[in-house]
């Protein structure tokens, strides 16, 4: 991964890119393998390679103009390229990096790969690997191509909005903690793409300062996401070590058993939701402000679309808050839902220290953002020529500490007020004892939202009550609700069919006769020689 980021030529970049895919696939398989696991890794690899092909193609399209894959020469060459080629490069890069970043509908591998990967690997994949894709896209769109027509910005904006909304909606419906977090990666990539798209729109309308603002927002969110998502995955790892499950329905009451994990996890939850005083808020706030600044443009379309995105991001934020109330509330609070959760042990010291460090970083950026915004602002000035330091980055750095003083001061004063405290069991409406079965579960908690957005989920419900002859006095009721992913099937089926039929055609070439294989090699050699001869 480091190779990818430090590479200064296209070739090194591509090698690093491929290496990253293969190593991460190996890491996913580290914890044993089964048919299902191998199937999921296969999907992961296939989508990665399709994406990598697009990236390679977009690099090679530069070649006829730059004559080298050196980043510097690509940059100088891109200015003189025809518009059609630039469009093609942009689209290829968008699809290629989008696959790695997991924007919807190219996200299929994310919820499949994450649950089976070991938690530290998940943290690494979600925290760093997705970021390399964002890095690659920023490299292409801003550094190489230097922006584009305004529609390219709207395409990115649309991808961001769709990924953000669907990502968070799918996340709410999940109760497998790691898959839920994977869907939240989709959501956060969506927010990052919203920032990038806004920046591209501003760039197309010659508003460099605002473009820098949106770009800073996106980059800061990228960094923030790396922090809190790693923290969340480490927390999930600690939970799975302690209880051997990451199913939210089996957890509960962990806060009392694992106080440090719980506290750091809570900080991560607040951060990802974008609550003030935590780091997610700073980047979301900057994104909001750049949307609002869209009204300053003279183009009518941008004036309408960008401010409306405020509503989209607000909806994403609101749903994310609902989702993490559910995650933290069901996993850490209340009573344990299972024996394992009841006897959970706190994570080892090293892990606690790691999580504490990440949590401290989240709080630091959340309360004193100025320190991080300054280097980002100068970076944005490199990527967006002619941009000053956006005024918003300064104002947020100035106001947030005051708000923190206010909230903490009033809260502290309120905390000093209280004195006597008495432990009494929660009233159980006259029943002898409350049991954990009476608590809200994850599925129950998300039911209203799933009901309201049922057009998105297209649930497949089935209720069976036994015995069948007494419908009103059932002994057992079984209920099953599955989210159908109809659009995924509709989108991917043609591709899969096409590839399968192509594979069948190719099978005919594979006769099993070694001489035929030798013939293939010979023919390839001859045709290559002929190609050289006639080209020269």
């Amino acid at each position, binding site marked *: 991964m480091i190779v990818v980021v430090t590479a200064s030529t296209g070739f090194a970049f591509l090698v690093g890119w491929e290496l990253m895919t293969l190593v991460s696939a190996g890491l996913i398989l580290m914890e044993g393998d089964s048919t299902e696991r191998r199937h999921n890794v296969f999907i992961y690899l296939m989508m990665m390679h399709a994406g990598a092909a697009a990236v390679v193609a977009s690099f090679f399209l530069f070649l006829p103009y730059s004559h080298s894959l050196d980043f510097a020469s690509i940059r100088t060459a891109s200015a003189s390229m025809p518009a059609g080629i630039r469009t093609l490069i942009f689209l290829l890069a968008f699809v290629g990096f989008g696959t790695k970043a997991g924007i919807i509908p190219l996200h299929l591998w994310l919820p499949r790969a994450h649950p089976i990967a070991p938690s530290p690997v998940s943290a690494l994949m979600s925290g760093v690997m997705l970021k390399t894709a964002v890095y690659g896209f920023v490299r292409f769109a801003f550094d190489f191509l230097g922006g584009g027509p305004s529609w390219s910005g709207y395409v990115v904006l649309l991808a961001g909005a769709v990924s953000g909304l669907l990502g968070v909606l799918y996340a709410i419906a999940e109760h497998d903690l790691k898959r839920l977090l994977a869907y939240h990666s989709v959501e956060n990539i969506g927010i990052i793409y919203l920032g990038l798209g806004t920046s591209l729109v501003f760039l197309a309308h010659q508003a460099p300062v605002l473009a820098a603002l949106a770009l800073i927002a996106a980059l800061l969110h990228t960094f923030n996401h790396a922090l809190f998502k790693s923290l969340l995955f480490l927390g999930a790892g600690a939970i799975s070590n302690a209880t051997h499950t990451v199913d939210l329905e089996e957890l509960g009451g962990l806060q009392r058993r694992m106080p440090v994990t719980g506290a750091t996890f809570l900080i991560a939850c*607040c951060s990802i939701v974008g609550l003030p005083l935590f780091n997610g808020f700073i980047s979301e*706030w900057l994104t909001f402000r750049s949307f609002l600044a869209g009204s300053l443009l003279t183009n009518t379309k941008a004036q*309408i679309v960008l*401010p409306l995105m405020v509503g989209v991001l607000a909806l994403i*934020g609101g749903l994310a808050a609902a989702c993490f*109330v559910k995650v933290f509330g069901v996993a850490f609070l209340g009573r344990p839902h299972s024996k394992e959760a009841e006897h959970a042990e706190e994570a080892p010291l090293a892990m606690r220290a790691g999580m504490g460090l990440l949590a401290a970083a989240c709080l630091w950026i959340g309360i004193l953002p100025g320190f991080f915004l300054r280097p980002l602002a100068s970076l944005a000035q490199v990527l967006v020529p002619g941009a000053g330091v956006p005024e918003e980055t300064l104002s947020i750095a100035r106001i947030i500490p005051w708000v923190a003083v206010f909230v903490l001061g*009033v*809260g502290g004063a309120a905390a000093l007020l209280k004195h*006597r405290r008495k432990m009494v069991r929660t009233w159980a409406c006259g029943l002898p004892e409350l049991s954990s079965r009476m*608590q809200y579960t994850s599925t129950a908690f998300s039911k209203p939202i799933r009901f309201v957005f049922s057009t998105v989920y297209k649930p497949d419900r089935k209720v069976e009550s036994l015995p069948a002859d007494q419908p009103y006095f059932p002994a057992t009721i079984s209920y099953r609700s599955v989210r159908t992913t109809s659009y995924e099937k509709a989108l991917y089926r043609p591709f899969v069919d096409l590839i399968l039929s192509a594979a069948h055609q190719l099978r005919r070439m594979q006769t099993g006769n070694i001489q035929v294989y030798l013939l293939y090699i010979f023919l390839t050699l001859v045709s290559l020689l002929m190609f050289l001869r006639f080209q020269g």
Partner: protein
Amino acid sequence: MITAINFFQALIIILGAPLVRGIIAQFKARLQRRQGASIWRPYADLAKLFRKEDIVPPTASWVFRFAPIVLFGATVSVAAFVPVVQPSALLASRGDFFLLVYLLALGRFFLSLGALDGGSAFGGMGASREALVSSLAEAPFLLGLAAVAILAAHADIAGIVVWTLRQNVFNISGVHILAFISLAMVTVAETGRMPVDNPTTHLELTMIHEGMVLEYSGPSLALIEWASAVKLHAMLALLIALFDPWGMASSLSGLGIGAALLLYCAKAALFVIVLAVIESGMAKLRMYLVPDFLGVASALSALAVIFTVLAKR
């Protein structure tokens, strides 16, 4: 001097909040031809709760005790954003409306967690419903405020108020009408008032906010109740400041401030009476009609944003 007045403004909102509740309750009682309790009753309630002991379930963690404190801190900070008698406030000069909305979200997040920590079914039910209502209310809230902010070309609340003060009272713009309607709807949903949530019910089929606070008692409950009263008052004051700020003191003379304060009380009383009439005249919406209520608010606020452009041409 100005800081002192700003401090005074925040105190008006925080300390006057129980009174707003008391007046609503009294007025509703009158509409229903009851005597009703005194308008000072909420203060007596708070004092009583603060003297009592805090009852905590043995299964709860520190989050349960911590939640009311965060809620109170965040909500009181919101009160410091809203101008009352003159167009500035403690945090209003640089803090913009995004910060305000998300501070409310911070408080709500922790209250929902506290509800889930209680360990009973009611807390989960309240939190789950609150999650639905608040997640859908956030978009119209921000869009409505954004529409007004775009017109004023200021994102900070003080800037918007100053701009509005310079406009003609009779210059009705579509943006303001649409934004006002959607924000009023959001206020009703956010503060848990009548067509969305019934603040006086304890019936498990209907309660949202009351379900969340069911396990709280003593000083914790007092903080929560006070915070929700402050929230209601701050939202009312915000509506007044954004859509009807005329009469705010332009200079810092004692007379001007006094007159502005009186005028504010009159406007707030008017709002409170309208709220009471609406509450008495309407039945609570079925739970799954609330998304439609908020959907209408969202569409209105989106239209308000679109109108900011169409009106400029």
